[in-house]
């Protein structure tokens, strides 16, 4: 297989790793909505933590994307 073709295949495979991050990010907001529906008064307490959870989970998706970009352009 030529190097160019292998690069594209590698990039495509690396991007599969984002599935987990997609599920994780969905989980963050689904638990927020569930917690908010059980106790609407806690909105301000957990409000700040959603964004931390989102950013930390999104980072995993971006690690996978960086591997894909490295195999494409590295």
């Amino acid at each position, binding site marked *: 297989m030529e190097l160019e073709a292998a690069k594209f295949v590698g990039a495509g495979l690396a991007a599969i790793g984002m599935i987990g991050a997609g599920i994780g990010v969905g989980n963050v907001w689904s638990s927020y909505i569930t917690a908010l529906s059980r106790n609407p008064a806690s909105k301000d307490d957990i409000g700040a933590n959603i*964004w*931390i959870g989102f*950013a930390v989970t999104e*980072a995993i998706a*971006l*690690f996978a994307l960086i591997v894909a*970009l490295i195999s494409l*352009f590295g």
Partner: protein
Amino acid sequence: MAGPLEQFEIKPIVPIRVGDLDLSFTNSSLFMVIAVVVITTFLVTSMRGRALVPTRLQSMAEMSYEVIANMIRDNVGMDGRRYFPFVFSLFMFVLVGNLLGLIPGAFTFTSHIIVTFGLAAVIFIGTTVIGIARHGTHFLQLFFPPGAPLWTAIILVPVELVSYLSRPVSLSVRLFANMTVGHVILKVIAGFVALLGVFGVLPILGLVAITGLEFMIAIIQAYVFAILTCVYLHDALHLH
């Protein structure tokens, strides 16, 4: 036509060579200087009036102070307040760096792994030194919490050690990847505008939406960088 990765090239503006070292003043350094000038001007001019009932500009400066002060008080505790200047400078530098990059034609200095790794390395080494200075050899309790049964040490200690050593890596790669990927997406979609001719309106609408997303990501990533620094400081000062 340039590819999507040419925007991250470092171009020297004032070439300076010291022996074998290349210490040029580059576009990256220029934007770091611009960020510091923007932050200083904003804080100095908005607080010049020192009104008891703040004007809008003074409100903004006071709010940025409050966000970090509350973050430190909630995440590090009362003895963490001495680290406020460090966390505040870190937060404002990363925030203004991220936001300056969204100006068309500007350079995002936080999109380079060396810059973010420099910041993360300082935070990692700093918190480790602070922890060792405060607790001495008790600092190693961070990796083997008291109360855990001895036989779990074989799995627990390596796992805790690896997760501790991965902190600077994850901190730096998170910021660098978010900034790089955001700008690459913007350039790739912008490339479609010329290709589609009259239907180029659709990529432009996409660009507006993604630029809005990038603003949100710039602010959130700066906030997450600062709050994770506070969490690591808490770990170093209070050992879980």
